[in-house]
């Protein structure tokens, strides 16, 4: 019942916001709606915590420790993003970057996007998962081109075509999966339910599943942003409005990875080996290396952090590919802390770009003097995302590194190289932006500081102290993903 309420709120508010349009309270309603979904998701989480996984609405939906934590994360980050976007979009509106229609569309699609992500997470049906992933793309694609500049239209077109084609391949994978499962489970919807597939996974035909997994990796991997399928990601992140960059980076990539991990567990069980995991490890390490070297030559600040997202998704993909309790635990934690850190970085970057009137790194200077909280927000964000202690990213990367040391020691140099290069690149570029004197001409903004520091505080806490309930949650999830 709670699950249905979760969908109703986001879908209903999408419709509501489409009707309300660009009125004064639209942004507040957006915040309220996101917050309502967050509260409902907390109830759901408590339920799952006490009674374990469950299915709802005639097996259409299911929750377990793995997806419920992503649901809470998704609703939480979307709430803080809604708070941030209130200030951010007001500024953009005042400077004539978006019009009347644009704002109506923006708010409605923001809620639609949340709905699509929640559906992807909670559905029990592999086919519906595909449909909602496609819906998530469709709802954001026109948001990327919201400003109607030539480069934003180009970025949106690229995003649409690449993700559309990629996800089409995932549908082919889904068809193959159904082809294998209908022999075991029987025809009809039953053959596509995760809960059924997991039960019969060792009886599914391994040759078909291995072929299906190739299509899943290419399909959902495009959305995760794995190299060499990542081309859309930096463009879409740098050209769209910053709140959208924050949710794309912090949430959508996680959802795509979630889909991939579910497929990997299934295929591994059918094949009786870690074949699928090895493919993910390959893609993960390649993404880490390529993205970290790409970081070095970025001139655009949002583009740079987009590459940093590719790098971190690479690390998480690698961790899930490696498998085993420690690496999986590390991967889960990494998804959590990366999502929190990266969205808070995009919040500060958005404000920094508004202050300086440009996204060009060379022209952003002296943020600490111009607006101390934005400046320090960026300093802490970069320290956290590069994996410095005491922040949570350090903990997750350390766990993954430990597991790599044990199971795949040959990959340690590559892994370390990627992290070190990313650290050097980000740290150097951050310094020129925050220190020194700000330029004479700059915009006054009313920044939303609460989301940034709330996220940073959470990441800091996760680095120092790991709460009991979260630990039990993750251990349950590790058990599911074995």
């Amino acid at each position: 019942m709670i699950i249905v309420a979760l969908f109703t709120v986001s879908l209903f508010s999408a419709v509501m916001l489409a009707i309300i349009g660009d009125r004064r309270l639209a942004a507040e309603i957006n915040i309220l709606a996101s917050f309502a979904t967050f509260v409902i998701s907390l109830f759901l989480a408590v339920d799952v915590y006490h009674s374990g996984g469950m299915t709802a609405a005639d097996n259409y939906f299911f929750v377990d420790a793995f997806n419920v934590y992503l649901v809470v994360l998704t609703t939480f980050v979307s709430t803080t993003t809604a708070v941030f976007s209130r200030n951010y979009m007001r500024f953009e509106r005042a400077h004539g970057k978006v019009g009347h229609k644009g704002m109506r569309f923006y708010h409605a699609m923001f809620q639609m996007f949340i709905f699509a992500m929640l559906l992807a997470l909670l559905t029990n049906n592999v086919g519906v998962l595909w449909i909602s992933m496609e819906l998530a793309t469709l709802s954001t694609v026109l948001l990327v081109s919201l400003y109607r500049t030539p480069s934003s239209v180009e970025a949106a077109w690229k995003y649409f075509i690449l993700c559309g084609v990629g996800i089409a391949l995932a549908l082919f994978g889904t068809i193959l999966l159904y082809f294998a499962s209908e022999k075991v489970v029987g025809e009809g919807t039953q053959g596509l339910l995760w809960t059924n597939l997991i039960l019969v996974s060792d009886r599914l035909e391994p040759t078909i599943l291995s072929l299906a997994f190739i299509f899943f990796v290419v399909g959902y991997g495009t959305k995760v942003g794995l190299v060499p399928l990542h081309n859309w990601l930096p463009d879409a992140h740098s050209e769209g409005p910053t709140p959208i960059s924050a949710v794309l980076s912090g949430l959508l990539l996680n959802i795509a990875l979630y889909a991939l991990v579910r497929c990997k567990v299934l295929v591994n069980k059918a094949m009786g080996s870690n074949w699928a995991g090895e493919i993910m490890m390959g893609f993960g390490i390649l993404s880490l290396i390529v993205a970290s070297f790409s970081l070095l030559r970025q001139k655009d600040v949002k583009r740079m952090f987009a590459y940093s997202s590719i790098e971190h998704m690479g690390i998480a993909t690698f961790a899930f590919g490696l498998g085993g309790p420690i690496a999986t635990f590390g991967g889960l934690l990494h998804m959590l802390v990366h999502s929190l850190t990266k969205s808070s970085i995009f919040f500060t970057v958005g404000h920094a770009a508004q202050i300086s009137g440009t996204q060009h790194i060379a022209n952003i200077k002296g943020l600490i003097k111009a607006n101390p909280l934005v400046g320090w927000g960026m300093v802490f964000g970069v320290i956290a995302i590069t994996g410095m202690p005491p922040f949570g990213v350090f903990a997750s990367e350390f766990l993954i590194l430990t597991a790599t040391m044990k199971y795949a020691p040959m990959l340690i140099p590559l892994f370390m190289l990627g992290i070190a290069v990313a650290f050097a690149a980000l740290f150097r570029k951050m310094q020129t932006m925050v220190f020194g004197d700000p330029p004479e001409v700059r915009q006054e903004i009313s920044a939303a500081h609460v989301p940034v520091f709330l996220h940073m505080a959470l990441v800091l806490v996760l680095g120092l102290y790991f709460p009991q309930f979260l630990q039990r949650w993750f251990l349950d999830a590790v058990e599911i993903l074995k």
Partner: protein
Amino acid sequence: MTFTAQIINVLAACILLTSFGLLVQRRIYGLLRIFAWQGLFLSASTALVAYTAGMNHLYISAALTLTLKVVVLPYILYVLVNRLNIYRDVEPLVNIPATMLIGIVLVIFSYHLTAPIRELSTLVTRTTLAVALSTVLLGFLMMITRKKAVTQIIGFLALENGLFFAATSATYGMPLVIELGVALDILIAAFIFGIFIFQIRTTFDSLDLKEMEKLKEHEGA
């Protein structure tokens, strides 16, 4: 092989033929016509599978294909092409023989890839899975080789045709909920494509995607 199975195979061959047709057709009206034909073959083969296998829900997806792929989408594109006055455009295609050869290689590759599955399948339609995969890959090839926005859209839709064909040929169709969802997604995608065409037109003054190559790594910029 029964008579109906043979007809299904003939229809599969027709779908493959139309994919190659799309690959080398230069005129936009011609492309739309071939695309509609492909939809018609697809719909006919789906209906035939529904008849032989006695799967009633496949009739619905056949009807869906007929309305969407043969009537609605070609019509939307037709209106769009007329409205934008681009129906006279002839796309310069480099090296048609080479494209055809790559296409043939892709077909052989698909047959090779699906070989293990063909042996497992007992369905009437099992031989058509390779054709479905070929259609998907040829749609890909079309999207790569074409530089105009409208032709890329047609390539994308042809790719989706291949997926639908895979769903019917390999599995007697996905459950109806899924097919309806997929159809809805494709419809939304088509509308977004339409909106995009106008956005590209107004921002770039051209529908040539060669204009849209600004966003690269800005080395030394």
